[in-house]
């Protein structure tokens, strides 16, 4: 019977061409949108590698204060913040804080078995020793920054596991190794878990924390990340900005919470996937209506054929099965064409997305279209099954 349906659909290829094209295009679009969706969803589900619930960010700007005086003021501010009830910890960091839309990349050079290789981009985060506590970072190997790093000849770094895997192979030994490029060199003292400062929709990327001394003056005014007691609110915020203003009258501070920043970033990141999703939904509705319409039309055009088949011994169920079978055959051909296109994505490694995302998206897109075709064929197939053979045969 399947062969019969395939033959029939082949013979009707002119009439079915449009339907086929529609399914083909729908599949390709669904596949692409599905890949984007899955990519984002996978990332969303992956651990961020840090806690943000009770973390605030303060952006400091020394304003018109002469540079030599800035360091002393910053130290006063830091001391005051640390002493404030409700503040659990204060860390200094660079501007690429979590959910900040800001990135800072370098490249690293490595040599494996005599072959030179460049790893890039590598996110670089400047961090004072307190950052680990404030953000609740996970340590995989070695240690986090401490007093020993103040006197180190080479700046100490903690690299994340993605960078370790890139440089030293999956799970390789990194602690104690030197890393760098032609300008700079660092000493690896520890390995952290992944750190997705890019937010929940970002892919885990190689990154490294570079030790910033508490005494550091070069980056005097930058970003602070504060761990606060759970439940802290506007009152604490007001006090903190008042304290900063009294320590340095020219200083401008801007306090935000990481949960707020996360929301903002998530919303921005979701615009494209949601938009694509909506477009996709409309596309599906359109394709569904198209399928439904064509099937309906086909049935009224092919009443004679249905009558003949009934006369030759087809049951009512057989007729509805045929209607469903036909559309599934067409869907299968459309999907087969679509798969030829879709398969190029993982084969060519488009966007460096893991191939399993593409394969899952193919399955999802195919499943959706099969389901859609089935749903659209349900009513027309029942309609066809209800056709009385004598009536249908007389009409021709």
């Amino acid at each position: 019977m399947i062969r019969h349906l395939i033959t029939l659909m082949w013979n009707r290829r002119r009439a079915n061409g449009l339907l086929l094209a529609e399914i083909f295009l729908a599949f390709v679009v669904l596949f692409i949108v599905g890949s984007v969706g899955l990519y984002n969803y996978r990332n969303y589900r992956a651990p961020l590698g840090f806690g943000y619930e009770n973390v605030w960010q303060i952006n400091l700007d020394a304003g018109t204060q002469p540079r030599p005086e800035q360091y002393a003021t910053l130290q006063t501010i830091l001391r005051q913040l640390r002493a404030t009830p409700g503040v659990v910890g204060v860390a200094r960091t660079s501007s690429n804080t979590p959910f900040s839309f800001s990135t800072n990349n370098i490249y690293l050079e490595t040599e494996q078995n005599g072959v030179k290789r460049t790893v890039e981009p590598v996110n670089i985060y400047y961090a004072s020793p307190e950052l680990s506590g404030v953000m609740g970072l996970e340590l995989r190997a070695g240690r986090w920054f401490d007093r020993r790093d103040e006197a180190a000849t080479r700046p100490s770094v903690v690299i994340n596991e993605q960078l370790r895997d890139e440089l030293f192979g999956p799970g390789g030994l990194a602690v104690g190794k030197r890393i760098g490029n032609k300008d700079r060199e660092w000493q690896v003292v520890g390995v952290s878990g992944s750190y997705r400062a890019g937010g929940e929709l970002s892919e885990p990327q190689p990154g490294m924390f570079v030790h910033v001394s508490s005494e550091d003056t070069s980056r005097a005014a930058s970003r602070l990340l504060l761990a606060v007691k759970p439940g802290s609110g506007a009152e604490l915020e007001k006090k903190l900005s008042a304290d900063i203003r009294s320590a340095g009258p020219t200083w401008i501070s801007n306090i935000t919470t990481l949960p707020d920043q996360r929301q903002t970033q998530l919303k921005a990141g979701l615009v494209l996937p949601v938009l694509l999703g909506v477009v996709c939904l409309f596309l599906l509705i359109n394709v569904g209506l198209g399928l439904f319409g064509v099937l309906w039309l086909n049935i009224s055009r092919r009443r004679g054929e249905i009558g003949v088949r009934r006369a030759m011994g087809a049951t009512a169920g057989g007729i509805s099965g045929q209607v469903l079978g036909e559309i599934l055959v067409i869907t299968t051909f459309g999907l087969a064409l679509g798969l030829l296109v879709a398969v190029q994505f993982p084969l060519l490694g488009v966007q460096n997305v893991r191939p399993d995302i593409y394969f899952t998206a193919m399955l999802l897109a195919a499943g959706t279209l099969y389901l859609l075709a089935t749903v659209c064929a349900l009513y027309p197939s029942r309609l066809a099954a209800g056709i009385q053979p004598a009536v249908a045969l007389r009409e021709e």
Partner: protein
Amino acid sequence: MTNLFASATDSPQPAAAPVAGPGRAVLQLTGIEKVYQTRTIETVALNHVNLTIHQGEFVSVMGPSGCGKSTLLSIMGLLDEPTSGTLELDGRPVQSYSDKELARLRNHKIGFVFQSYHLINDLSVLDNVELPLLYRAGVGGKERRQRAYAALEKVGLGARTGHFPSQLSGGQRQRVAIARALAGEPEIILADEPTGNLDSVMGEEIMDLLLTLNREQGTTIVMVTHDEQQALKTQRLIRFFDGSQVS
């Protein structure tokens, strides 16, 4: 392949000489009435028809246009339901059959040749002829093909199997429709003017084919015809006028 028509063409069959007397009743119509109700008028296509078709009989039905011959055939072929009256197939009232059983009966027992052929335009000649076997469980693709071929050979269309109905003449289409009815080797053939579109030579050949089938395989045949000559070759002639049997 032996020529099935050879003996029949030169010596017409005696009108009533069944090989083994009238068998049991395969089709029994009792008080069959068919009324078509349209908005303006009511047409009585069949008016209290009582008729028995015995196994192995070759019956011809004649009557003026519009007297209800096609309607009669489609009721006997289980394609239409009578407005009132009972139709018994093999002694069992048809109303008692389920849709599935009816489909099975149409498939196994009955071969229908429609007045207007009703070939499926999207299928090749061969695929059209295979159709009854397609709906029969246990018949494989190869056997289907072979039997369809054989049926097409019988109607002289062995060379046209790959054609589509639109590429055939009216007469050729009619022969495909006949081959399709033969392919399933049914017990009963209901043929609605099977030679209506054939020239006299071809008409003769088809007629002889049906006669041979009736004689050699005991196929019960009910044939609507406008050709007195053909009707005379069958065992029984039923005349219809205005929905009623007149002889």
